């Protein structure tokens, strides 16, 4: 066990955890931010996607020791009122079915649009390939990303 000072969504959190604790479980069990989801634990499904210094990372595969000096953004912190252009586009296109993967999808898409504000269909698919949707909402996710990109121009 060790003490870590983390910056999550602009706020400071102090946690006492093993240094190998994945950021995912620090978020869910200690910071009580459960928007970031557990799907596989091995970085294969993308449900745990957060931003570390603005870059999309699979939080199940980042030990807290590596995140201590970084700024962590979770789905709860993407916007104050849930009104980021991606979140609005997600609602406009009625994307979710079960909804479990969607926070990870949105966080990954936000990182994509930060790097590439006008992605082609192929670039969207390539960037989002690591985010599984078991319910098959891929077409709507693509449409929502394109809508958000257009609004964010």
């Amino acid at each position, binding site marked *: 066990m060790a003490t870590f000072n983390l910056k999550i969504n602009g706020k400071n959190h102090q946690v006492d955890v093993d240094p190998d604790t994945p950021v995912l479980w620090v978020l869910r069990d200690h910071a009580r931010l459960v928007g970031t989801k557990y799907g596989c634990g*091995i970085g294969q499904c993308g449900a745990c996607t957060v931003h570390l210094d603005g870059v999309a990372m699979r939080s199940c595969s980042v030990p807290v020791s590596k995140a201590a000096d970084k700024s962590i953004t979770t789905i709860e912190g993407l916007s104050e009122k849930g009104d980021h252009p991606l979140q609005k586009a997600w609602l406009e296109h009625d994307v979710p*079915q079960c909804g479990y993967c969607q926070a990870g999808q949105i966080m990954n898409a936000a990182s994509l649009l930060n790097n590439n504000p006008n992605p082609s269909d192929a670039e969207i698919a390539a960037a989002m390939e690591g985010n599984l949707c078991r319910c098959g909402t891929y077409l709507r996710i693509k449409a929502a990303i394109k809508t958000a990109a257009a609004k964010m121009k």
Partner: protein
Amino acid sequence: MTVIKTTFNRRSFLKASVAAGGGLMLGFSWLTSCTPTQEEAMILPSEWFDINGFLKIGDNGIVTIMSPNPEIGQNVKTSMPMIVAEELDVDWKKVIVEQAGLDTKIFTRQLAGGSQSIRQGWQGLRMAGATARRMLLEAAAQKWQIPVSELSTDEGLIEHKKSGKTIGYGEVASAAGAMIVPKEVELKNPKDFKIIGQPTKNVDGANIVAGKPLFGLDTQGPGMLIAMIVHPPAFGMKLKSMNADAVKSMPGIKDVFTINSQPEDFDRQWSDVNAFPELAVVLGETTWQTLKAKRTLKVEWATESPLESSADHTKELTNLLQKAPREPARRDGDPEAAFKNAAKVIERTYSAPFLAHNTLEPMNFYAQVTPEKAELVGPVQTPEFLRKTLVSVLGMPEDKISIMMTRMGGGFGRRLYGHFGVEAAVISQKVNAPVKLVYTREDDMTQGTYRPAYRVTYRAALDKDNNLIGFHVRGAGTHGSPVFANRYPAGTVDNYLAENHSQESNISTGAWRAPRSNFIAFAEQGFFDEVAEAAGKDPIEFRLQLFERALTNPVGKDNDYDAARYAGVLKLVREKSNWGVEKAGVHRGVTAYFCHNTYVAQVVDVVMDNNRPRVQKVWCAVDCGIVVNPEGAVNQIQGAIVDGIGHSMFSELTFKNGRPEQENFDKYRLIRHSEAPKEIEVFFVENGIDPTGLGEPALPPISATVANAIYKATGERLYHQPFVKQKPILG
């Protein structure tokens, strides 16, 4: 005008304040937001009045409608309340939806499965809304001393047109609860529907995209401990002994022990499928600490029954198909003679492997069991069955057990089998503390309850004029055959034989989205394509001719389909896809299938991309009667299509000596963004028939539609799933 007899008991006036609400978990709010398109914030009432258990009306006219059924992503949480709201006659923007917990005094069939929620709930939901509306009218009539027959409603307002008097539902809600429930109520004429049939956004949408706590895995409560299990690594194995010494002293660990969630004398139900009732359990304070301890635990296993491998399964299924069963499932005419005298006989064999469900949210459940009561919260498709098993296993009466269903990160049939709820309860009872049981992905994927492995042989006999004179299907599968003997083409062929074989196995199986149909439609509709080709007929024309036979001069009895509706969807997809018009580089396949009471026909466009076939577009025509929520409906159909393509193309669960060879998504392949079709267009037949379900029907035929198109593109047929291991895909 439709009049329906009401079946509610008289309910006395109940007042419930906004702040109250049983079973609220810390950090959880069961009040989901209103429709996300609403611009202004909804002002909550200061008082609620419970009208009939299905809905509450606030003093300011805001309405809370309970959604009775478990939500697995099929969006009944939006469509079921829409039906209530329609008959209640309120503005949907003034509706809040709440998930109802298990309550068999108010609700029937609180179950997610079989694509039946809307079909079986249709009348009851309409009645709930209509009854409440009637009670509000009675209250206004009494207040004004005017006959009810002179009153009407308009979206939450009661009007006396003669005098111009109006009053809002909120103002009479208090009195309405005391009205006598009428014996009969009027239902709206569907042509007057204002809510049903309108594309409506998911009621949980805003909460989902904001990352609010919604899922079972998100449950948190005071004093809650985390429980994780270790189950045998192979089917046929059982817990023998365990060395917990090293683990018990690990940081954050409270206890390590074994449980048996199926004691000797317990009352087994169909939902109690569980290959591994005896488990090692690690109890800890946080998930990561418990997970590390679980991985450190040393367990010894004993082998109890043969350890099976996939090669064994294939061999056994193949052997089964070599012989006829003692009794056929169905026989019309003289199939042997038909095949003997045929001008052409076509015979093909199809197969598909075991599949895991892989809901993205793994199995989990929260339980707090004390000597007085058991409180359970979590993702389960069958809460009523879970409660019944708990009565037996915990030794507690039913009225002491409460179950609240959380939103589920996927169901697909996996959560019909609530063993994880039983396990959580048994653990909580043993340690006398609230517990959240969490399965890892590996625990989940290797636990069983799989879609069975299947193999089927089809034979068709054509006469010299290319008429279909004989049809024979013989199917085999783990714990049961995939064949539906009375489905099409039964009834269209004079000489017909359907046969079933069941393979024994210690690998547990269960319902997986569109059970049996999810495989047999692939085989049947692929076979039809070959028979049509052998007969020199267009595949749509070939099917339509058979439907015509079923309509005018059907063979036999118990033909389990409506040939007119079946032909109807096929004609619709033919029209919408411009079938028959060739486009350069585009190769097409077509299918039609009927399951879970709904008719579906599909056309797929495949193009070659770097010498590999790729699905470009899917057209899907659907006949499910009245479409309650077109927005959710299209999403379901698109999702089912992506699901069906994904699994038939990529997925399989194989076994070596009883062990699943895949335990996470590195080895078990699921369809990803780039592999989904570029476009899926959906069309509904409009016929005003009472609605049927959509969760499953679009999945079964899509693998055949794709396979039929790939045949056109490559000249190669696909007979075995997953396609990614077959020549037409490998190249």
